[in-house]
């Protein structure tokens, strides 16, 4: 099957505007602006069942419909702050198929009657931000962005805003703070961004992959989109596969394949043909899944992964084999979240600090079994108390690692084995 998002893999030079337009590019946006009302676009996206691809899986059309009637101006912000260890899908879209992404931004803007959209790119995507700026300039030249589009009175401008190294800015309210020139720290909600977001105005924030789905949904319709994937999770998803597999990379597949298919058919199996030990389905913020037959035969969709006590999230599948100690795995994730905690709320700031000290002691072989239990307690104490999801994310691997892989935490000499 041809790709729907990673179309650059079939269509050479689709990152050039003329090639993108030859392949139907910007016809969906033109159709929306000239032939459909904003509400009609929203209804179509609702009917397609498209769910947010940034991790939360919230229905996109429903999210748009939370914008309150009669309040203007409104903003759309594309979240291109991809920074979760294990996630590298948005980067490939931006690199390979940028105009389809930008057409998606334009469609979302029209659907919520926004006249300005922002693309927030992580600072490390510096070269991509320059490319996106060049794409936007081309679109303005071609009359596909700007004033009085397609002879209507609809106008639209898109700007990039480049971050500067902070995972937390992928959290939508922290991202808005960052665009406003403040520290990237999450806001207390309510109010939610839909009512009071960027510059205190109604705002929709969507992930890059989510937005890139929109042009083809408009072109081919909701039924076409629903013909792929599962009832719970319609459509296609980019699975970022990493860790101890032979062929790591992005795989765009319909929802509903199994972990076994992804890892062995697409990923080529495990390095050195070792047994697979554990899976993190949603990057470093995942619960650790014991990779038994039941798990390997579980379908990759939002509802099925939940039956394993985990989430599919952004579908960043990190594969761990039997050469890797879970103790070392959670040391890596704890250090990541400790570094990225924004410091605003106490449970996350202090919790990640103490988890780091405990896991360092455990990793260096200086710990007692009580320290392991204390680490588990700290993780559990943080849960449901943090201001945003980052604090919650920080606890998932330590809590489930200790619960599901107890043998890896038995008091033993230093030196967690790893690759």
């Amino acid at each position: 099957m041809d790709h729907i998002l990673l179309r650059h893999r079939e269509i050479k030079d689709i990152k050039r505007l003329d090639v993108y337009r030859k392949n139907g590019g910007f016809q969906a946006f033109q159709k929306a602006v000239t032939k459909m009302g904003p509400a009609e676009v929203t209804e179509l996206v609702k009917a397609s069942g498209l769910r947010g691809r940034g991790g939360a899986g919230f229905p996109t059309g429903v999210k748009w419909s939370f914008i309150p009637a009669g309040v203007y101006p409104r903003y759309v912000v594309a979240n291109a702050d991809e920074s979760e260890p294990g996630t590298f899908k948005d980067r490939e879209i931006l690199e390979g198929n940028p105009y389809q992404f930008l057409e998606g931004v334009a469609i979302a803007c029209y659907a919520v009657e926004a006249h300005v959209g922002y693309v927030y790119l992580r600072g490390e995507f510096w070269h991509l931000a320059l490319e996106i700026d060049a794409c936007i300039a081309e679109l303005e030249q071609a009359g596909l962005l700007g004033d009085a589009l397609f002879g209507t009175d609809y106008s639209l401008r898109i700007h990039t805003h480049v971050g500067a190294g902070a995972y937390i800015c992928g959290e939508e309210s922290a991202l808005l703070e960052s665009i406003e020139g403040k520290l990237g720290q999450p806001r207390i909600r309510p109010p939610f961004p839909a009512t009071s977001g960027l510059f205190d105005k109604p705002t929709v924030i969507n992930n890059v992959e989510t937005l890139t789905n929109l042009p083809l949904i408009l072109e081919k319709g909701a039924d076409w989109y629903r013909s792929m994937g599962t009832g719970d999770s319609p459509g296609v998803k980019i699975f970022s596969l990493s860790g101890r597999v032979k062929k790591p990379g992005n795989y765009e597949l319909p929802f509903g394949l199994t972990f076994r298919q992804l890892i062995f058919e697409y990923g080529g199996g495990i390095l050195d043909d070792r047994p697979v030990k554990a899976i993190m389905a949603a990057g470093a913020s995942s619960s650790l899944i014991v990779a038994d037959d039941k798990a390997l035969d579980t379908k990759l969709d939002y509802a099925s992964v939940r039956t394993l006590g985990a989430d599919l999230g952004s579908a960043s599948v990190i594969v761990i084999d039997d050469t890797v100690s879970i103790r070392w795995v959670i040391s890596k994730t704890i250090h990541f979240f400790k570094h990225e905690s924004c410091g605003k709320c106490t449970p996350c700031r202090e919790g990640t600090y103490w988890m780091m000290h405990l896991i360092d002691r455990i990793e260096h072989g200086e710990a007692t079994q009580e320290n392991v239990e204390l680490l588990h307690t700290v993780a559990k104490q943080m849960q449901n108390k943090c201001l945003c999801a980052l604090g919650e994310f920080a606890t998932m691997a330590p809590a489930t690692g200790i619960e599901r892989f107890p043998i890896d935490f038995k008091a033993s000499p230093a030196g967690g084995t790893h690759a």
Partner: protein
Amino acid sequence: MSLADKYPQEVKKILAKYPPEYKRSAVMPLLYLAQRQDGYITKASVQDIAGMLDMTTTDVVSIVGFYTLFHDQRAGKYRMQVCTDLPCAMRGADRFLEELCSHLGIKVGETTPDGLVTVEAVMCLAACDRAPMFQLQTAEGLEYHENMSVDKTLELIATLKKSGGEVK
């Protein structure tokens, strides 16, 4: 010389991106511009930007401190930032970093004696399938180097040194 004098076009373009009553939004792009000018963010730039955006210098300094790509200290001409997060580490990133540092005779966070390269360990760079990898940060911007080995990296450093430290 102030940023507005030195880069009038860029400053104008940056300010035009945001509503005039929210000009503070321009602080990050202006800090990048200041970093491009001096290689790091100087006290003079902080004052310049604070004045331009009606912010206190403390506010500007807090932004510099919060975001890891802003630097208030001079380092090597190139910052070689190696990702050592979980997926990269499962593909040898820690060992790569250790061996690289031992070849260069420096510790992580230190700069080579000629002032060319500072080697740092950083968090995820969204390149998990192409480890070992690093980004090279200069005053001008960033570029990725993926599927690297210690040998390839030492060659790259030799090339940078020969070319007088110019990055594309």
